[in-house]
């Protein structure tokens, strides 16, 4: 796709980022703080796609706001974290597939809460109708409540559709931000390392500044717990699927099996991490957030917290009569998580990863 026939003219959020970036490009004091500034320096003009790329490279560590000599009340009114956050949320909608789902991003918190509530209710109701209501309170056996094949019939499409939707959105994002001839594995490796260590969520080494100009490492720690907790939960589910289908070894699984060994620490990581992020964000400096509130971040963190909490509850209470209801709530949450995945904050990780790959690629070319 050529860069001229862009779908539309630059949006207001893109214009604002372009305005601020041309100030930063003449200043460059923040060059050492993160990837955004070196990426900016490779450009002299900032077209819409460039700004979307820069926005997704930012980790919102806050440092460049407190460090900026042109931050409001200065008339230049530079607030890079806020401008990039605002554009970042907008960019998710711009690349979303299918396009008609884009408006969901605008009032994201509300939509996701609705989807989650509905899914959970449907699952409880569905169980009660599907099996006999008695199974809801019969402890121990999940498949008495919902036969395994039924679970698969519901979850396979709910999982596959988001995968396709996200993959297509990601391809659109990758293409629009320009061609990358000669892209190598080295760039992927570098980006993976940067993403896995949250290299840029550290204010250039001092720590993030998201509550005040006193740097701290809490946000980074909670993010790590959440991210790795999520990965472990994912590994737990995947290993369960393999055991079921490949090894012909159906649940329930003992504590020493991979689904449990991954699942329990994963659930704990999700709960502590997500709860920590929610707690920490309450004191977050409002000036770093998008002026236009979509509730996107909060909705996502709460969903993750619910995922972890219901999963753990199920693990500990499965031998009690609460099992049936808990299972319904947990599966409802998982379902809601999946179907809203392409239209919520979940995509931030993927776009950011794509941006990090491009960054590694560009820097290697510019400074071989």
């Amino acid at each position, binding site marked *: 796709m050529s860069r001229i026939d862009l779908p539309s003219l630059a949006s207001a959020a893109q214009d604002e980022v372009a305005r601020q970036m*041309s100030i930063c490009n*003449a200043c460059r004091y923040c060059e050492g703080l993160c990837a955004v500034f070196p990426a900016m320096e490779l450009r002299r003009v900032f077209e819409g796609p460039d700004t979307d790329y820069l926005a997704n490279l930012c980790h919102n560590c806050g440092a460049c706001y407190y460090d900026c000599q042109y931050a409001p009340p200065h008339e230049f009114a530079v607030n890079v974290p806020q401008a990039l956050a605002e554009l970042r949320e907008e960019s998710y909608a711009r690349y979303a597939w299918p396009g008609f789902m884009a408006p969901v991003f605008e009032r994201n918190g509300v939509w996701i809460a609705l989807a989650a509530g509905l899914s959970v209710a449907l699952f409880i109701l569905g169980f009660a109708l599907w099996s006999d209501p008695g199974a809801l309170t019969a402890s121990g056996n999940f498949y008495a409540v919902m036969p395994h094949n039924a679970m698969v019939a519901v979850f396979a499409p709910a999982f596959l559709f988001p995968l396709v939707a996200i993959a297509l959105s990601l391809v659109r994002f990758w293409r629009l931000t320009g061609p990358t001839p000669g892209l190598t594995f080295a760039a992927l490796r570098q980006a993976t390392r940067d993403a896995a260590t949250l290299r840029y969520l550290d204010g250039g080494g001092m720590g993030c500044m998201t509550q005040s100009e006193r740097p701290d490492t809490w946000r980074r720690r909670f993010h790590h717990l959440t991210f790795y907790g999520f990965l472990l939960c994912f590994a737990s589910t995947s290993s369960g699927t393999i055991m079921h289908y490949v090894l012909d070894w159906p649940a329930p699984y003992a504590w020493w099996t991979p689904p449990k060994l991954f699942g329990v620490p994963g659930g704990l990581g999700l709960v502590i991490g997500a709860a920590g992020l929610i707690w920490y964000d309450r004191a977050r400096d409002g000036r770093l957030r998008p002026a236009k509130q979509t509730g996107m971040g909060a909705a996502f963190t709460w969903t993750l917290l619910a995922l972890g909490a219901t999963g753990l509850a199920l693990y500990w209470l499965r031998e009690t009569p609460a099992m049936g209801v808990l299972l319904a709530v947990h599966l409802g949450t998982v379902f809601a998580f999946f179907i809203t995945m392409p239209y919520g904050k979940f995509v931030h990780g993927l776009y950011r990863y794509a941006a990090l790959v491009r960054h590694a690629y560009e820097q290697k070319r510019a400074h071989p």
Partner: protein
Amino acid sequence: MSWDVLIAGGGNAALCAAIAAAKDGARVLVAEAAPRAWRGGNTRHTRNCRIAHDEGNGILTGPYPVDEFMDDLMRVTKGRTDEELATLTLEKSKELWDFLEDQGVRFQPSLGGTLSLGRTNAFFLGGGRSMLNALYRTAEDAGVEVRYDTRVAALDIEDGFFKGATLERDWQNGGPEREEVTARAFVAAAGGFEANIDWLKEAWGDAAENFLIRGTPYNTGGVLRQLLDAGVQQVGEPDQCHAVAIDGRAPKFDGGIVTRLDCVPFGIVLNAEAQRFYDEGEDFWPKRYAIWGRLVAAQPEQVGHVLIDAKSINLFMPSVFPPERADTIEELAGKIGLDPAATRATVDAFNAACVPGMFDHAAHDDCRTEGLDPPKSHWARPIDTPPFYAYSLRPGITFTYMGVRVNADARMVMEDGSVSPNLFAAGEIMAGNVLGQGYLAGIGMTIGSVFGRIAGERAAAYVSN
């Protein structure tokens, strides 16, 4: 209220003094005239500090011995420096990396476009405001009380002995709240007087009305005036200052670093009468940009116009404001308010005088003019490829040099040569002792940190006796 040490100012010098004094046990009050959001004077606009060191350290790319630093200082000041204080400053600058790092300041390699300073200057990670934030955090943790929006309005000094001061809180809005405070020592770290246009006019005449002030509007020299009136010896002359040519569209105050323009060597500079007035290609821009402030200040209306063409537009650091642009010289002249015919004639004369050569913006190339007055010695290429671009230039004042005389203890020296027991000074307000004229990038912070520390330590030692 009574304090051990009262410090006027809230920039690098003030904070270094406050931290040093508080760590030596003194009860310190810092009065900063600016509101919190604007705290830190010109320090908030800085990016580096020049320090002597015997070895590179991974960020500083190589050694910069005191002797070489001294040679550089002698060259720019043409010997106008107090040698004892200069030696002391450069020697003590060796400690600054560790000292600042201990206060939480972090460093980064030199920024893109400033590679020539990578060996000599320590760049602050995140710039001067980040550096200041670290100093404020450390000062607060050490028990220093900082009052914003509070200026030192009057000093009670008797025969060179400091007794107390009048503070004015909330002095900008409504009636100021006055408070008399006593302290056993006073550190003046309130910067120069570059933001006081009336004072500048005493030295520069009405031309000063058209000066732009690159830094804080709060450095109006009130404390300096009080000290001179109380009999402290003056160093330097009021017209000595660091003045560069900056983008004429910069705000009156606080435009900071982004308003600098690096395009002069690639074009020609015309005054309001569409005439050239100086060799634009005399030397590399970092070596020349500090003379262009004065050059432009001497032109009618204190304005200059740089004209360049499409060949050069990408050769210099991006500018914060886009240039004026046109397809013909005449149209461009119209846009910037110059006479089109006169502009055309000047450009034609310049173009005709350019001798062919091998253009190389990274070297003193052989593209120059012949038979033109003033000549352009390097990087002279005909301005003939549209679109044509123009930037306007105005004098931008960085800071003034006139200040108070101090000795090696940072104690003020009185007019009769006696030394005050409890009046100290640090930073811009005394930089003229070391920097009689000229400028060396990054030495403002060096002087402020070195003398700030000395002032804080000596003041604390004085009050504990």
